[in-house]
């Protein structure tokens, strides 16, 4: 992993993009990284576009501005692709990860000519098969770890198990579903288009 990884999340109010960003910061912290996880607050209401950010680094992080040239972008809701320029400033050697049921033919034209890698995951499918309810957070978190490689799969899964065990202390039945959702999400990430490699 390079020294500093910057991730921008796009979601809609109520979908938990902010929580997912904070969870990613949490799990990166647990393996000894310096982290920042922060939302951009506006007139937040259910369904309105929201943005959240992560910085993950091997060194102390001092900057306190938003992220304009992220390494990775995560889109929690594909309807945002029509409203928000999600790939704005996204580094060409980075990647965008989109939660969608749609095929790549439908998704790629919506990315404003972004030339980097495009990944997709059907978080709804993962959720319904493992949790029985649609909480896109959990699979998106696993998917962004896979795409960004901020940590190894096994390290991530074991750290998440510890934190979920703590979080769902009083609801152990939820723990198993979440564990399955994380593991399944790793397998369900699809590469829609690789970056245009120029050497």
């Amino acid at each position, binding site marked *: 992993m390079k020294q500093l990884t910057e991730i921008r999340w796009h979601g809609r109010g109520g979908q938990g993009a902010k929580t997912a960003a904070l969870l990613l910061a949490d799990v990166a912290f647990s393996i000894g990284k310096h982290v*920042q996880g922060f939302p951009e607050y506006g007139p937040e209401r259910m369904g309105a576009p929201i943005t959240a950010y992560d910085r993950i680094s091997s060194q102390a*992080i001092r900057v*306190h501005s*938003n992220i304009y040239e992220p390494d990775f972008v995560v889109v929690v809701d594909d309807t945002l692709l029509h409203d928000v320029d999600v790939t704005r400033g996204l580094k060409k050697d980075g990647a965008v990860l989109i939660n969608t049921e749609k095929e790549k033919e439908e998704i790629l034209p919506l990315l404003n000519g972004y030339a980097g890698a495009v990944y997709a995951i059907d978080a709804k499918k993962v959720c319904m098969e493992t949790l029985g309810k649609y909480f896109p957070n959990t699979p998106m978190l696993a998917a962004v770890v896979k795409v960004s490689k901020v940590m190894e799969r096994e390290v991530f899964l074991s750290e998440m198990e510890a934190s979920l065990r703590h979080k769902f202390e009083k609801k152990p039945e939820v723990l198993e579903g979440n564990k399955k959702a994380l593991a399944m999400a790793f397998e369900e990430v699809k590469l829609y288009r690789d970056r245009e490699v120029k050497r």
Partner: protein
Amino acid sequence: MAVKERMSGNEAVAFAMKQINPDVMPAFPITPSTELPQFVSSYIANGEMDTEFIPVESEHSAMSAAIGAEAAGARTMTATSSAGLALMWEMLYVAASNRLPIALAVVNRALSGPLNINCEHSDSMGARDSGWIQIYAEDNQEVYDNFIQAYRIAEHKDVMLPIMICQDGFIISHGVSNIELLEEADVRNFVGAYEPAHYLFKEGESMAVGPYAVSAYGMEAKRAQAEAMKNARQVILDVAEEYKKISGREYGFYEAYRLSDADYAIVAIGSVCGTIKDAVDALREKGIKAGLLKVRVFRPFPGKELADALGHCRAAAVMDRCEGFSANGGPLAAELSAALFQAKSRMEVVNIVYGLNGRDFTVDDAEKLYQDLARLSEHGNQETEAYRYIGLRD
């Protein structure tokens, strides 16, 4: 043993509040400081604190109840932001003039209008002449450390003044990042018990709180209060020195970052200083001698110390996250310019207003500002206005 954690600024201050466990907290919620009374209430409900929490009906009542509790002899705290601080205004002066060392956690937010919840320093800057000590923080670590030092400064017998511990709303209050926490026993030992010399519940002693003063006596009261604010200067430094022994972290009136040999300096307060440090490092790589003077203590204002720290620079930009509406620049620039004049400095100074209503300020903005300073020191100050904005849309 330090405990490595990750927390938001609000969590960090709430954690410091838990570790200190003051006697009383009256509070009324307002974004972005709402989490502070929330966390404290949870700690109390969980039996981790035994602070008396008083849910009041407004911020004016919160400060009134804090004044009553503190006057009775109880160590008291509260928290607020923006309009909440504005509603406390009348009572801020009562707290300070009655020499009641209340600790107020301020989570800085813009005042109306437009109605906005984001960071700005206009709330606490507006209260700068209310007689409260004001200490600002760059990040969650600093606001935690500042809060632990707060009562030692405020309750010192030579001071006995209320204190605001400020952090940037949302940027720090709601951003999660790494932090080192002290052990609770070390915090309690450092802060110590509150033993005021005089208080309403003291047996065998009667006292008046908030009496009327005729012109024949009122001026002496103000002068004594001003003396306490002067005394706070040494106490702030002494407490910082002691705090270093338990934390390993150094504090003073300001932090000078790569400033000792700098040609060009930015002077600023709060979270923007982290961003500026990244710009300083980038410019130093290119051979530009940039430096930062981060103001930590705004009240009492360390004018001479700040002027001395800047003395050798060729040009400085003073940044205010507050408009001020003086039509002559922001409050930090006004006070620092006066201090530079007193110090007979002939340095070129520009005043920048930035970050209003939460407008972002980037490393790139800071780099450009340093380059402006370099040009200005070469060609002379061509600025026609007393101050200018950065980040304003065309």
